[in-house]
């Protein structure tokens, strides 16, 4: 089927190396999200897969066939552009049917295909309109429709939601997710928005400076970021990073001293740690609570409060001046410049060594995707039935 295999793909423009060797296996039907800061090469990678740029070295296989030198149209891909790229002088029907028409498909076939796609996307009433007469969301659907009618093996999305307003973005995101379930095709989706990545992806590929930092299920990336970059990228607000030192190594945890002299346990693999190592102590804002309720507690001064209703973000300064953020209760009564106690569970602590590489957490929660969980449940049900 439509597996996509990237084997040590490199790309350079003149002397500038953009991609330094990307290897990735994408299974048929998988929704893969390429995510990273701007300039990390994610869009370039997508364009290489589409065939719009030439691969400098390495091999790209789609459905088991090397396509390095094959024209975009013959790769069985369809791309949805950030700017939609609708043909401005053609109406919606022509926009969607043009690719089929130039490839010599019959009139009835084209009509059937376009109407089917238009119904799927709920744009049947717009077929006579020109792109300039459509709203942003409608244009986006037409662009997706143009991709669907071609029955591609692989859909490529290049930041498709970034031109939409916030409400429409959420709505379209859900629709893209549903569309994937309905069509069951492979989707490669580029975004810089980690929420889009977390919500849509079966697999997220975090890219940084032309290399893959980590690839895995959304929860795997959330629970086990392999380095500081991924840890900072996944999750919003960002994970708090506090410098610290290893005080002692126990059987199943480390004892670390933070820069404000407070001491905490950390349940991580201890093999590579040694006493006195400089480490970074990471804790997500949502894992901090107000008051000394949990095992490790810190003392901090409030420097800014953001009330969102469902939660309150407290921006805090520790004793040594380190800035951290916590996600508190929505009804938090803490006030500005108050000195408060906050606490955390050592199970939630991430530890990164001096090179920024994570020591794997030993007491993390679930990392399986809904699909994997469904499979597991089915297996247990089957086992129980037997």
């Amino acid at each position, binding site marked *: 089927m439509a597996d996509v295999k990237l084997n040590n793909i490199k790309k350079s423009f003149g002397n500038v190396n953009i991609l330094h060797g990307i290897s990735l296996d994408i299974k048929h039907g998988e929704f893969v999200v390429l995510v990273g800061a701007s300039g990390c090469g994610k869009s370039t990678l997508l364009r290489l897969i*589409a*065939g*719009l740029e030439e691969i400098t070295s390495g091999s790209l296989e789609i459905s088991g066939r090397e396509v390095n030198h094959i*024209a*975009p*149209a*013959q790769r069985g*891909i*369809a*791309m949805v*552009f*950030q*700017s*939609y*790229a*609708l*043909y*401005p*002088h053609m109406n919606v029907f022509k926009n969607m049917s*043009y*690719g089929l028409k*130039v*490839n010599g498909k019959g009139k009835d076939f084209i009509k059937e295909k376009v109407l089917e796609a238009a119904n799927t996307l709920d744009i049947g009433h717009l077929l006579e309109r*020109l*792109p*300039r*007469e*459509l709203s*942003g969301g409608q*244009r986006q659907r037409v662009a997706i429709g*143009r991709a669907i009618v*071609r029955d591609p093996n692989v859909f490529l999305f290049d930041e498709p939601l970034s*031109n939409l307003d916030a409400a429409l973005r959420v709505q379209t995101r859900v629709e893209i997710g549903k569309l994937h379930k309905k069509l069951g095709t492979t989707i490669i989706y580029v975004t810089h928005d980690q929420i889009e990545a977390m919500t849509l992806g079966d697999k997220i590929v975090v890219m940084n400076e032309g290399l893959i930092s980590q690839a895995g299920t959304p929860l795997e990336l959330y629970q086990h970021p392999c380095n500081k970059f991924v840890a900072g990228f996944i999750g919003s607000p960002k994970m708090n990073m506090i410098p610290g030192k290893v005080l002692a190594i126990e059987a199943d945890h480390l004892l670390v001293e933070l820069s404000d002299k407070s001491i905490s346990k950390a349940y991580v693999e201890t093999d590579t740690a040694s006493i006195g190592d400089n480490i970074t102590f990471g804790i997500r804002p949502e894992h901090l609570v107000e008051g000394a309720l949990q095992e490790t507690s810190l003392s901090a001064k409030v420097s800014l409060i953001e009330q969102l209703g469902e939660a309150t973000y407290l921006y805090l300064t520790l004793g040594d001046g380190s800035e951290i953020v916590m996600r508190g209760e929505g009804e938090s009564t803490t006030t500005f410049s108050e000195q408060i106690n906050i606490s955390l569970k050592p199970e939630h602590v991430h530890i990164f060594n001096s090179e920024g590489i994570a020591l794997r957490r030993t007491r993390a929660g679930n990392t399986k995707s809904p699909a994997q969980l469904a499979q597991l449940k089915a297996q247990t049900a089957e086992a129980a039935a037997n």
Partner: protein
Amino acid sequence: MKLFNLRHDSSKKLMIHAVLISYTLIALFPIWVVIINSFKSRKAIFNDPLALPTADTFTLIGFEEVLLRSEFGLFFSNSMIVTMISIFCVLLFGAMIAWALTEYKFPGNLAISVIVAMGIMIPIRLGTIGILELMSSLNLVNTLTSLVLVYIAQGLPLAVYILSEFIKQVPKELKEAARCDGVGEIKIFFTIIVPLIRPSIATVAVFTMIPIWNDLWFPLILAPSDGNQTITLGVQQFIGQYVTDWNSVLASLTLAIVPVLILYLVFSRQLIRGLTSGAVK
């Protein structure tokens, strides 16, 4: 402050309009004089060149002379043929060259660009003798073909230059989307690029058409014989060494304005801005 700005703005606008209107008047004045005098008797033309035709002085003798007793129809169709074919070729080849130079990297790209730029800077009339020699060795002297060839050469550089600028503005994603759709490069050019740069093609058409229609130089040198004269050359037959038939000269000049005006109206309808809106946000 706002009021001051408003006043400042409107006085600036007034200034601009004053300049433009006076320029328009200056530019239109000779045409106006030609048209009103073409409807006047010879005597009236010389008595008071700026007066409008009155019941006494009104006459259509010039038009009669031109339409009934000369080969005006032939001159006219010669001019039309030369102009239309030249415009068509200039637009087609100009757009194709512009697309090739902006879209594709190939050896010689820079060299061709430089030659095109030089073509804008050097007036083609400097090469008249060379062109005449070339045409005579090709046995093309006294043919309309020679005129068409020269006019294509004359119109191409500016056409390429202007159209390249517009082709560069066509969003890259549109071409890429078409390539993903499996549209061939030639089809992309004719079905995506050309429709999108239509306004600029119309502009180039107008710019190309007027000097060709009005040219006297090359028809005089390359195709002066009977049967191949263009309208500007044909008019000359009314201008004699001793007597000039001013009625006929002015009448034929007036008639010569008509097709240019019609072509201009046709093309200017295409000069609609914002055709690309809606393509990309």
